[in-house]
């Protein structure tokens, strides 16, 4: 293999990392308590990934291989974070982290498909419900604040949000391949 310049190597890293970042963050989020925790773990993960990037040798497809590798690194970072916070409330036990991490890695293709199906399903939601769920997922908002704006109690609002998530989960399971193709604007 021709030797790459450091700059090329760096560009390759940024490209792989940026592309895999959402899925990786989602992976981390399922293992920690909150988005703030996930952000903390992600920062460390990003740095470790870069430091160890010279060890990364794609076998087949660099995209999927990078993601798998990044998941392994992220899992160790979650475990390290966990040890710092072990005495805090609601931090998953180590065996749970491992079980979940295996599950996510195994199901990655299915999850990727669900992500695409979600876009189809959001379009199917009634306008009002869609607006509310998007407002709830607006960056930086607090849910009780959104509830307040909607003139609902926090409890009623959480219930509604849970119901919407359930509706979306059901829809995601029923989205056909044809609909997925349309949402992508092609078959690619």
């Amino acid at each position, binding site marked *: 293999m021709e030797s790459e310049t450091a700059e090329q190597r760096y560009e390759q890293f940024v*490209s792989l990392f940026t592309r895999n970042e959402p899925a990786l*963050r989602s992976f981390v989020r399922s293992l920690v308590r909150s988005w703030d925790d996930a952000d903390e773990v992600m920062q460390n993960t990003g740095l470790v990934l870069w430091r160890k990037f010279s060890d990364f040798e794609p076998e087949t497809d660099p995209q999927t291989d990078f993601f798998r590798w990044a998941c392994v690194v992220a899992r160790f970072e979650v475990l390290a974070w966990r040890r710092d916070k072990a005495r805090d409330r609601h931090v998953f036990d180590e065996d749970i982290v491992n079980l979940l991490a295996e*599950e996510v890695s195994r199901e990655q293709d299915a999850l990727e498909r669900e992500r695409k199906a979600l876009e189809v399903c959001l379009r199917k939601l009634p306008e*009002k419900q869609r607006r509310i769920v998007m407002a709830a*997922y607006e*960056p930086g908002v607090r849910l009780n604040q959104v509830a307040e704006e909607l003139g609902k109690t926090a409890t009623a609002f959480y219930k509604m949000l849970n119901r919407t*998530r359930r509706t979306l989960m059901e829809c995601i399971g029923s989205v056909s391949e044809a609909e997925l193709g349309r*949402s992508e604007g092609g078959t690619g």
Partner: protein
Amino acid sequence: MTHETFTALAQDWINGQIDDAGFETLQGGIRENDAFRKEFVRLTHLDSALRDIGAVENVEAEVIPFSQTAEASRSRTRVWAIAATVMLIAACLWIVFGRMASEAELSFVSRDSEAAEPIAVITGEAGAVWKKNPHVRLEEGAAIGPSTLILQEGLAQIDFFGGASISLSAPATFELVSSESAVLHRGRLKADVPPAARGFEIRTGDVVLEDLGTSFGVAVSEDQSADLIVFDGEVKATGRDGKPMLLTDGQAAQLRNGETIRKTEPVEGEFPTISKVFADAGDREGSLYSSWKEASLELRRDPRLIAYYDFENLTLESRRLRNRASAGGGSDLDGGIVGARVTDGRWAGKTALDFRREGDRVRFQIPGEFDALTIFAWVRIDALDRRLNSLFLTDYYDENEFHWQISRLGALHFATSPMGVEDLPKNNRRFYSDFFWNPKLSGRWFLLATTVKTAAGDGYTGEVIHYINGRAVGFSGGTNMSKPIPRLRIGKADLGNWSDPIWPEVAMRTLNGGIDEFGLFREALSAEEIQTLYDQGKP
């Protein structure tokens, strides 16, 4: 544990609402049950995906969330979170490479845009009557995506985002294909194509007309044959045989069965022009304005009015907003204009007030207690950039006073509390209408009205109805809505702002928009009366 119980716990965990016992049960479920584990991963994954989409959507919609509040600084957008991680790495690398990653490297894979992106906008109408299309809003100022429009009467001006401008004359069936192309199925149009939009295409039947500069007219009859005339510049007509024919200034042709045949005799009939659309619209606008004026003079005499402001003949020096209601307090109820600047109202020549800066408001002092109320205003909303955006707010929020405003998500909101600010969660009666506004409606005039009947004592708790453009709408939310509504008081109050707010640090509620008519009645008008108000005043 049932599947349902597990899902409920997982949702609590996502919402950050789980308790200790619940958390242990959740862990147990994940540990022991494969199906639960799978479910948990799917749910958290959905949560992440929604967060990603929420960030992109909300950034695209240019909704600035709570930007004036302290919470915002806590956690910026998701996009920034990603960027921050990459930047942190980049910063470390900078030491190594002596350079920062360029913006392009830090940019993210763009998402597929919605299928129905707007490609054109209706910029003018003169007596236009469109055939209703449930998927397209057809009126002046409306942005439209790819769609087929049927103009039954009148003239309309459509500007394509590519730069070409079309004047369409009824009856016509016109299909917008992209920002650079359209199909005329039937009817008459004139296309004006500036140099920047060169290449704009109109198809009729089997012939494609490509504009190579300035302007041409086409008329398609019911048998699909078409006449073409080039007013200025050059048009390339390509028929079924694929051979282009060039036509220049003054030349005409007939298009039939996919062929182009040069014509010597002039094309019959008149082609609509932009200036005609606007001239006709101007007449129409003038007549709408004058008929509103007549109705407004009549309205002044309504004995049920508490106060009525027509916002007419305001000048830069105006500091008084005249109360025109014949009944009641007369000039004692004049409003004091503070800051708000004079601007154009619904029609050319009609004045309005613009509310934009933090201080902009009109001050009122309106005494009395009311068993019922109708409050209405013609409002132009430019943006809803605050959590609550003021229409008419009494100072502070004392007992039996009320607040009339618009929520950031686009609901009309009426609130009153018999106990003032004391124990608000228990006492505050709040009524949020269905959402009626989104940023695409920025700049348009709305008639907003709310009628209130207060509790009469004998078990009747009262009633609040919100009206948007003359039509009663439902509620999207509220609190204590079935508790009795107290008799209402106003006292000192602001139009377009809030004086003496309850929470000074987060209370900025200046309206971002304009108002050109406002009134209060001491009775709840009927749905028909509100509809009439709208019909008489719609722009």
